[in-house]
């Protein structure tokens, strides 16, 4: 089956991101396809390269990046939700005249159309969040 995942909550505050990751790993292990993971609302914070959790805890951001690298998963961060929460890639940093960017490897910033497209293309769109 072809899955798509929507993550609506930030890392650590809420278990949604952990559950989404575990679901993604389990689906891939069973041989399913993962079309895209879309990060919306506070979920965009899952893409912050500057995240520094305590060493004895899971690193949620790096874990997503590794999943993208190992399985070629498309991790998409909503641009509008990202911008209002201070999440910028290099292009947006320049375009907005800011002095830093913070998007982790494996993530890309794009529009909400990517979420609707994921709903159309996937057999199931699974939402994680409140």
């Amino acid at each position: 089956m072809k899955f798509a995942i929507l993550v609506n909550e930030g890392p650590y505050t809420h278990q949604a991101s952990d559950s989404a990751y575990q679901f993604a790993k389990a689906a891939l292990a069973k041989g399913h396809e993962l079309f895209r993971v879309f990060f919306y609302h506070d979920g965009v914070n899952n893409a912050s390269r500057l995240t520094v959790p305590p060493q004895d805890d899971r690193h949620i951001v790096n874990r997503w990046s590794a999943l993208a690298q190992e399985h070629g998963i498309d991790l998409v961060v909503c641009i509008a939700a990202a911008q209002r929460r201070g999440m910028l890639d290099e292009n947006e940093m320049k375009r907005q005249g800011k002095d830093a960017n913070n998007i982790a490897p494996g993530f890309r910033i794009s529009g909400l159309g990517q979420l609707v497209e994921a709903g159309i293309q996937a057999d199931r769109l699974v939402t994680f969040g409140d």
Partner: protein
Amino acid sequence: MSDEIEMEEGGGVVKKFMFLNRKAPYGTIYALEGLEVVLISAAFEQDVCMAFVDDGVYQLMKDVDTSGIEMKNFSKTYRALEGYDIEKLYVERESMELRGLTEDDFIVDVTVLSSAELAALMAEQDVVISH
């Protein structure tokens, strides 16, 4: 599900999308950002509807004044949905009545459904995006 998906001309898939709104319009950003997805979905020529349940029914209230909380009032966006060909708006009767509201309290025309009717409608959808 997939056997009911019709193909539009040009081979594009038309799926049934329901945007399920469960939260009050202010207090959290879910309603505002949820509405942004709905507007974008209009460009994809899908079979889109919106449902309002729980505190989500408050999103449709008339005469909302947000000046006291310094937040952008986006109530009028619900009136603009018609211009995007998003005309199927459903309100769950139980949620509405529990909050002492009637259809006259809403800024747009809606179809009021019982919880069971809404559940049946939800089961027909290909995609449910819930905020």
